[in-house]
């Protein structure tokens, strides 16, 4: 049976991945201490997670799942091009300095060819978190409560899927990214 995708406010011929919202801009600092803005990733498909390096909740599993996605992209030959980017934005800028992020990346073996960890000033991070519909709540034990979502953004800066750990098979993520890259190609983007 064919997909049951029906009417949308966006018009006919819907994609399997609906447009959920515009991906908010950000202006943050990478794990190498460099400036990175959302617009610098124009025309790339991005997978965006929110973690903090001292988390003992879902963040380790989230980062591990992103590693699995990285491996799956490599296996599919999709790591060689420069059209896919993984991003992990900290929820704890006070503690997650660029150095801490680099150390965390090493612990997980995250390949920074196309995976960037981001931090910034408290204000910038707070604005970014709010703009993406995320939130943080300090806990008495020093941990930070937060939703667990991973966003898939297309080359037009639109959020097209939101995963969480219950539903984020790396093979499906790769399939979703492939779909977005195909759509991007049809629209004439590189």
């Amino acid at each position, binding site marked *: *049976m064919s997909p*049951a995708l029906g*009417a949308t*406010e966006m018009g006919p011929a819907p994609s399997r991945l609906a447009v959920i919202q515009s991906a908010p801009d950000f202006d943050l600092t990478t794990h190498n201490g460099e400036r990175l803005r959302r617009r610098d990733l124009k025309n790339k498909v991005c997978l965006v997670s929110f973690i903090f390096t001292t988390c003992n909740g879902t963040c380790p*599993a989230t*980062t591990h799942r992103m590693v699995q996605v990285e491996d799956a992209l490599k296996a599919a030959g999709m790591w060689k091009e420069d059209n896919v980017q993984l991003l992990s934005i900290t929820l704890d800028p006070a503690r997650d300095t660029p150095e801490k992020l680099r150390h965390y990346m090493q612990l997980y073996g995250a390949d920074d060819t196309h995976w960037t960890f981001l931090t910034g000033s408290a204000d910038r991070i707070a604005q970014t978190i709010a703009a993406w519909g995320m*939130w943080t709540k300090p806990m008495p034990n020093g941990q930070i409560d937060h939703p667990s979502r991973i966003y898939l953004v297309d080359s037009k800066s639109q959020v097209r899927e939101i995963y969480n750990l*219950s539903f984020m098979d790396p093979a499906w993520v790769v399939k979703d990214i492939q779909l977005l890259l195909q759509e991007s190609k049809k629209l004439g983007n590189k």
Partner: protein
Amino acid sequence: MKTYLKYRWTWLGAGVLGGVLFAGVAAAETCLSPFVKRLDKPEQFLYVFCVDAAAKNNDFLIVIDVNPESVKYGTIIHQLDLGSSGNETHHFGFTDDRTHIWGCSLISSRIFIIDVTAEPAKPRLVKVIEDLPAKTGLTGPHSPYALPGRMLISFLGGKNGGLPAGLAEFNNDGKFLRTLDLPQDAPYMYDVAIKPAINRMVTSSFTPLENYRKPLAQMDLKNFGKELLVWDFHERKVIAKLTTGLAPLECRWSLQGKANFGFTNCALDDSIWVWEGNDNGAYMARKLCTTGKLPADLRQSPDDRYLFVSCFGSNEIQQWDVSDRKAPKLTSTIAPGVQPNMMHLTGDGKRMYITNSLLSTLDRAPTFWVRLAHVGPDGMKMDPFFNVDLTKFPTGPARGHDMLLY
């Protein structure tokens, strides 16, 4: 590189362990979307979605103090006016991050978005989504089911109150994203349930607005569905259509790992049915047991062993041991009052809150209430003291329906 790989495998183990531990906590709260953040402490407040019984005054949500340590335990501590009447406020559900409740209305097709985080004891109405039939081509929003960052809602009817019914997705801000259409030969809708571990979604069947807005004696019984649809959730594609008894309502997947079966209560067949998938990807459905009259709601114990079914027509709640699906056993029965309907079981499986309204067109009870049953090794027992009267509001009696815990 070897050092990095060593740490990667170490954190892999920690991540998997963390995932297993997290999954253990996450599995504890039954009958909610698996994407909803779990309640990790004993409940403090019970939210009850209420219909003004005469449909003249505004519908509302009440907050009942359910903290046994509180001096206000068992009393209504807040009432949130939803700003309109005649809605038939019915089911509601948390967003994935548990900060908001989306409440659905079967007659007006309004959806109420309520903030429960700023002040959990005093929820605030933050948005009302209007004009849904025009936006979606659907009427009668029924089950708000959280997806990550979104809501998936089952709608009981088409734009003009007839068929086909359908599903619609919204982002958490309330913006309509898209509909999911139904096969032409299975146009009915009621509930939805997703089992992420096996990438499956199940939807069930009822009747559309043009029918359920009539009194029971005038309803066309030929205009009810008797299908379950099994979907590939990732692809949003129907892969199987199963025939059940008339009006399969609640969809309850097994809570065990990747177990590929679930249960539904067939309200006009007085039965519980089970759907089962096999290793070849095929599905079948069969009658599991005969229940009391008009089984209107179905709940699960967190250990997946028991089903609780409210028999609206015979004024009882039955507890069924379904650990052996070939030989289900009725293990206990309680009679909480006239026409028990909605139930809400706590995450530890020990307390079950109960209300007694189904639909304004179907209710026959002289009074409406919220009561409590305790679930223990010997089955269910009614709490003799917990009894919240829903007939004494300044605006008159109210029909309590769905419930959520905070």
